């Protein structure tokens, strides 16, 4: 029997970049195939070629042994190929059934929508594949994990045989991710074929039947979970040995640097998103804030760095009350901030690297004298940082927008860590970065800790929090539910708190 899907020599060239270079692989019926690779390795391009969002420059696609050429995503859907996108394509104010039927509506006589029939079909699908969902719930009321289930149902409703998941766990809690894995396995058991795109090694080893590793558009290896390890996969992805386990000495804790008392912050819609948060960070330690994205971490960080006015409470840095200080005042007190969204807040993309490297210090000597900026000094400064932090850029006058994500982040890290600081607020410092860059940035953060800097690390990646933190604070719906010393809780336990449930064993660390 021919494979369900086969790629033969798929090549896609963008001006100056070969995104896919003679990619060949096949997908068998009922198989879970993991497509592993760093950002920019060509995974998404490959899937977009399949989904005919791009036309390949060369190569052929076969479905069940038959050569196909798609003109539009509709053709791909007709041939039974469905994709669960990273960002869901759902209408929040519609209910589940309406979302599922959208574009393929059941109608009653006279052209009226027949939601009941659709709902019945949804219930059948949900029973068959253990995708629990109520067809009449509004999307906006559903947790992210359930929304993702709706996306999957949408595909099954359209008769998809091949399901592509593009980084599906990025938005999920660890528990939700586990639920998803159960669903994916049951889908495979029922004969659906799965392509699972990710750069997370653990997921690949847990879930896949077979692993294909892409690097710079080329298939560099094919393996199975029983023959591979995290280290061997990382080496394949990056092309060199990568040290995944962080060797961390115990923290030498100094005086209190940051103290936050009963902080209440609202978001742009005046909803309370940080609800009576109190915490402190001492010199030489890393306090990790775990939590699913959107539980108030963003607003907390913005309040700490002066970017958002707080409703009540107090923030002190080294004893100085900064509750109502400007960002500049806070920066000048020795606070570094690696922002969550580097392109929105951390960088000015159309400015060259050297200007971005002095973004917070351009007005101080030696860069400025009497309001005149000495660009020569700034250039020398940039050259030094480029070497010291290994920023891969053709020159310091290259626009930051032209650098890769990892190097953009290095620019921020270089800028923030190269000046004398006592507190580092790092918000998702490795978001969207590949294994090599993550390793580098983690080491930089640990070095700063060992130098005696107090570090507040915010990340929805539980692995990152577990690896780096000396203490872990778990945030849920704006509140800090517990602060646990590292080593006292397992990943699963922290995951539970992230969902709002405090296990009995950890009740001593709970905060009321």
């Amino acid at each position, binding site marked *: 029997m021919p494979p369900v899907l086969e790629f033969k020599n798929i090549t896609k060239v*963008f*001006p*100056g*970049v070969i995104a896919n270079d003679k990619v060949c692989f096949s997908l068998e019926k009922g198989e879970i195939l993991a497509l592993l690779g*760093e*950002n*920019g390795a060509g995974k998404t391009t490959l899937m977009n070629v399949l989904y005919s969002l791009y036309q390949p420059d060369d190569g052929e696609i076969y479905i069940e042994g038959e050569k196909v050429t798609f003109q539009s995503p509709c053709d791909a859907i007709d041939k039974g190929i469905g994709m669960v996108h990273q960002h869901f394509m759902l209408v929040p104010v519609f209910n589940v059934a309406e979302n599922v039927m959208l574009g393929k509506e059941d109608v009653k006589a006279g052209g009226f929508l027949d939601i009941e029939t659709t709902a019945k079909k949804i219930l059948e699908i949900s029973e068959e594949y253990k995708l629990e969902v109520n067809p009449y719930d509004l999307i906006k009321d559903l947790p992210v994990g359930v929304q993702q289930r709706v996306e999957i149902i949408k595909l099954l409703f359209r008769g998809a045989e091949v399901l592509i998941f593009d980084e599906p766990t990025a938005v999920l809690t660890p528990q939700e991710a586990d639920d998803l894995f159960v669903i994916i396995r049951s889908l495979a058991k029922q004969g659906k074929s799965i392509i699972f795109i990710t750069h997370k090694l653990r997921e690949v080893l847990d879930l896949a039947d077979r692993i294909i590793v892409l690097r710079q558009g080329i298939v560099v290896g094919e393996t199975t979970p029983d023959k591979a390890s995290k280290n061997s996969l990382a080496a394949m992805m990056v092309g060199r040995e990568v040290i995944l386990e962080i060797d961390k000495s115990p923290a030498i804790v100094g005086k209190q640097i940051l103290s936050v008392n009963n902080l209440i912050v609202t978001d742009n819609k005046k909803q309370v998103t940080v609800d009576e948060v109190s915490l402190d960070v001492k010199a030489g330690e890393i306090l990790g804030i775990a939590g699913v994205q959107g539980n108030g971490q963003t607003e907390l960080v913005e309040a700490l*760095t002066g*970017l958002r006015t707080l409703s009540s409470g107090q923030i002190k840095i080294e004893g100085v009350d900064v509750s109502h200080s*400007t*960002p*500049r*005042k806070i*920066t000048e007190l020795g606070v570094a*901030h690696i*922002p969550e969204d580097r392109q*929105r*807040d*951390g*960088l*000015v*993309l*159309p*400015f060259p690297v050297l*200007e971005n490297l002095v*973004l*917070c210090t*351009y*007005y101080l000597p030696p860069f*400025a004298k009497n*309001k*005149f*900026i000495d*660009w020569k000094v700034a250039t020398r400064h940039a050259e030094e940082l480029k070497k010291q932090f290994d920023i*891969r*850029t*053709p020159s310091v006058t*290259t*626009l930051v*927008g*032209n*650098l*890769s*994500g*990892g*190097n953009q982040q*290095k620019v921020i890290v270089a800028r923030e860590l190269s000046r004398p600081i006592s507190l580092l607020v790092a918000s998702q410092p490795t978001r969207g*970065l*590949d294994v*090599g*860059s993550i390793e580098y940035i983690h080491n930089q953060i640990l070095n700063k800790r060992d130098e005696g800097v107090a570090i507040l690390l915010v990340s929805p990646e539980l692995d990152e929090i577990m690896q780096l933190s000396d203490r872990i604070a778990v945030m849920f719906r704006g509140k800090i539910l517990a602060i646990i010393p590292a080593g006292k809780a397992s990943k699963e336990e922290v995951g539970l708190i992230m969902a709002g449930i405090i296990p009995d064993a950890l009740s001593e660390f709970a905060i009321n």
Partner: protein
Amino acid sequence: MTKKKPEKNIAVNIFFEEMSKRINSRNEKRSTWQSLLIPFLAIITGLIFGAIFNVITNVDVYTAFKTSFIDGLALAWKTVAVSYSALFKGAVGDPRFIIEALRSGDKVIITRAFYPITESLVATTPYIFAGLAVALGFKAGVFNIGAEGQIFIGAATSVFVGYYFTGLPAYIHIPFALLAGAVGGGLWGFIPGWLKAKTGGHEVINTIMMNYIAFLLSDWLLRGPLRRPDTYQSVSPAIQKSAELPRFFPDPIRFHAGFFIAVGFIILVYIFMFKTTWGFNLRMVGVNPNAAKYAGINVGQNIILAMTLSGALAGMAGAIEVLGVNHALFGAISSGYGFDSIALALLGNNNPIGVGFAALLFGTLTNGATKMQMDARIPVEIISIIQAIILMFIAAPAIIRTIYRLKEPKEQDQLLAASNLGGN
């Protein structure tokens, strides 16, 4: 009162705003070569389209085509040749006449020969100030459509200082009057800037409204408090001799020191934007206000500063015009400099030096148009068409690339170079 109809400009202006944003981001990536080539080709294309309009609006050409195709073609060619040579003669001068004049050595003849080019520079001067005003705003992310109104206010305050104060030596009176123009225009820019920073009121709407206030205010001033006592016309008293910008040649050459002041301001604005912390603040706010806030910059203050400085530069355009050329204020003091300057800033890529060249082009075309109208009976509006087409192509470089089969700038190459170095 000016004959310009601002209401017609609103839609156009909002279109520009969108375009300019896209251009801003695109231009940064555009290679230096193309950033020069595209305006050049746009100008050529503008002239070609101008010629086509010139021909198809000429009734005689149709009549000639009725007699024979050859005749029609010949007349079409002749029409274009006559009008463009008139444009050139009006803008730069007649080369033959210039050579003859130089040979003759007669001062009066030489003066007449060089008159067109000096007039072009006179027309360029306010364009430089107004263009710098709009470009500075663009760089800081604010869209100042109010340059026209700011020119009127600047001209009014400058004229007042120019005639009201007597007995001042020129080296005090001229800077004082220029400063008054800058303050007047600056105030007219400050108000919409302040409204934007404090209330979020959009500067496009507010500067347009400020334009109306400025037009009608200057209208009222000229009928009332600022009217010349001995006349019933809407004209202000003449400024004192001590406030007049020095001219270097005998009449009728009106070329005055304002041109050099304008060139000085190109350099000044350039240094301000690219060498000072103030300029860095403004540019950062203009490109990414979020990052600016992150970097500790007060975004609101900088918006106000940008609008005020922009207004001040526009006000100086008005001041230069009254102190250098007209020596008095009247209703038609600005014939749309403020509106043209939006186009001009785009053409100059919002770079002070680029604005200088764009101003020279606009000044030359405007000046040449008059001669073209007289000699070839071509309506001045053809020049507006040419300017509009140039602008359209600048705003949509893809069209120019398609027409002339240019390749996209290779931004990807740089990207690849960067990623090949080993980053992710």
